[in-house]
């Protein structure tokens, strides 16, 4: 479980998250949504222990994350940025193996991660020859190879560059992980947020302005007022922005 209490983060002297109180439990998937510069990425990075808070705490299973050694953190929680980076010319398999840095080698787990993300046929391809969407899938495979089934997975726009089929496949994998572990995902696509999340946190200008189940929160009038775009609902109740409407 990850809990943030009074979490305030300042970057270059500017407060970008202000006194956030949230909690993500095991067996739960959370979607963080909001407009640009709302503080979504900062919140997920702070939850991962990657940014020290100016005030407040981030607790993993009751322990302040700042007191945990970086290798201990790696065994409990993994983070995927929106644009993963690998500067060396590793193959897909070698890139995924980096996820086991703080852990004993586990070829079965690497093979399972390749298989689950549909990368087994690309395993020996150079990472840099892949498309950005495929690279995002490799980053997800790396964290699946890293953390235990009940670990915490914090992801920032994980499907941003994926085609619809890739996004659907990976969304299902995150849902699967949330059955025993914790998933916190920053998402812009509200249909993806509705399909993935048990809870949605809506941020605006560094503040948590709403939270709740997607079915409760994603009302067209509310979304239209917040995002400044008219919204409708699809046949299955997913929010659909009416661009140009």
């Amino acid at each position, binding site marked *: 479980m990850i809990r943030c209490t009074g979490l305030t983060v300042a970057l270059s002297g500017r407060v970008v998250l202000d006194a956030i109180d949230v909690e993500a439990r095991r067996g739960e998937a959370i979607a963080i949504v909001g407009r640009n510069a709302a503080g979504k990425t900062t919140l997920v990075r702070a939850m991962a222990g990657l940014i020290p808070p100016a005030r407040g705490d981030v607790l993993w299973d009751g322990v302040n994350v700042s007191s945990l050694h970086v290798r201990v953190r790696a065994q409990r929680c993994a983070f*995927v940025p929106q644009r993963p980076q*690998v500067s060396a010319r590793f193959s897909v398999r070698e890139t995924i193996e*980096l996820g086991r840095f703080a852990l004993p080698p586990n070829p079965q787990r690497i093979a399972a991660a390749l298989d689950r993300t549909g990368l087994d046929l690309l395993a020996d391809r150079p990472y840099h020859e892949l498309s950005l969407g495929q690279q995002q899938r490799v980053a997800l495979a790396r964290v699946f190879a890293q953390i235990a089934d009940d670990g915490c997975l914090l992801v920032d726009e994980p499907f941003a560059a994926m085609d619809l089929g890739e996004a659907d496949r990976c969304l299902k994998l995150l849902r699967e992980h949330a059955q025993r572990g914790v998933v916190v995902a920053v998402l812009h696509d509200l249909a993806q947020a509705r399909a993935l999340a048990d809870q949605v946190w809506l941020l605006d200008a560094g503040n948590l302005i709403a939270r709740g189940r997607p079915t409760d929160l994603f009302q067209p009038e509310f979304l239209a007022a917040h995002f400044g775009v008219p919204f409708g609902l699809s046949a299955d109740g997913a929010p659909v922005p009416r661009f140009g409407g």
Partner: protein
Amino acid sequence: MSMRLTRAQRGLAILLGAVLACAALRLLIGSGGFGWPADAVVRYRVNAALGAAAVGSALAIAGLFLQVLLRNPLASPFVLGLSSGAGFGYMVALFLAWRFGIELQGGLGIGGPVLAATVGSLATLAIVWRLGARGGTADPLALVLAGVVLSAIAGAGTTAVQSLVPAGLRGDFLAWMMGRIPESPPAGLLVLVIVLAVTATAIGAALGRALDVASLSDDEAASVGLSLARLRIVLFGFAGLLAAGTVTLAGPIAFVGLIAPHAARMLLGPRHGTLAIGSSLAGAGLLLLADTVRQSVDLGAGRLPVGVVTAIVGGPLFLVLLRRGPFVQWEGGRGA
């Protein structure tokens, strides 16, 4: 029973063979021609071969550390200005020693100049990092541009300071500025550079997995369990020491620290444990070869400094690699 060598084992065997061959050539080629030297000359050729191998190896391993930790394939002690910064520090030490009447030759006397050169190279690296990096992410071209500018400033400073030192003390300044392998170096300095090169290579090999992980972004590296800040402090410190040791012994030598890690990568692949040893061997071989070429060519006014040979060969190679080699592959994904 047949034994199949891995790519890494094959590559390391090739590199080791190349180093031994280049060392043999360097021993056999002198200003008097090709052949085993007279007894009185052997010591000088051995010194030169050891110096070239140690300096090449030290520059290459420093280049590898910088390339990995800055995530910049263009990085090397010379390109980023560390060598020029070290040269400036060295020359300031010579000036201060002369000004205050301190004897620098032999024994512990090498400590002051090496320390001053280390301060110079690390200060340059700190400024380059400050100018070219934002939040742990370094813009490759911004780093190189900052390095070029600082290198020019440090070079000008070195020339200015050397003009204040009596000619007898500064020795053959022009040859030193271009990079030259001394045939009778201070023994302590030669041993220091050998020890630094071997230690840094061993550390690079031992930290191979951490260097692999350092190719991820800072956030991702932390997420898989690596504190990049600590690794950077240790290995940047080593890069500064290596640049300082090589500059004090041989002057600023261009491009070996850039080309050797890439040559090793082509042979060995991307794993840094093997790459640290391979880069070290490639650097040793390259500088031995360059010094052998230098020794073989007399343009009428004596032999050229070895730095001229590495710049003539390494400069165009740098441009070719910049244009179409492994560099462009480091920029990230190809887009959807």
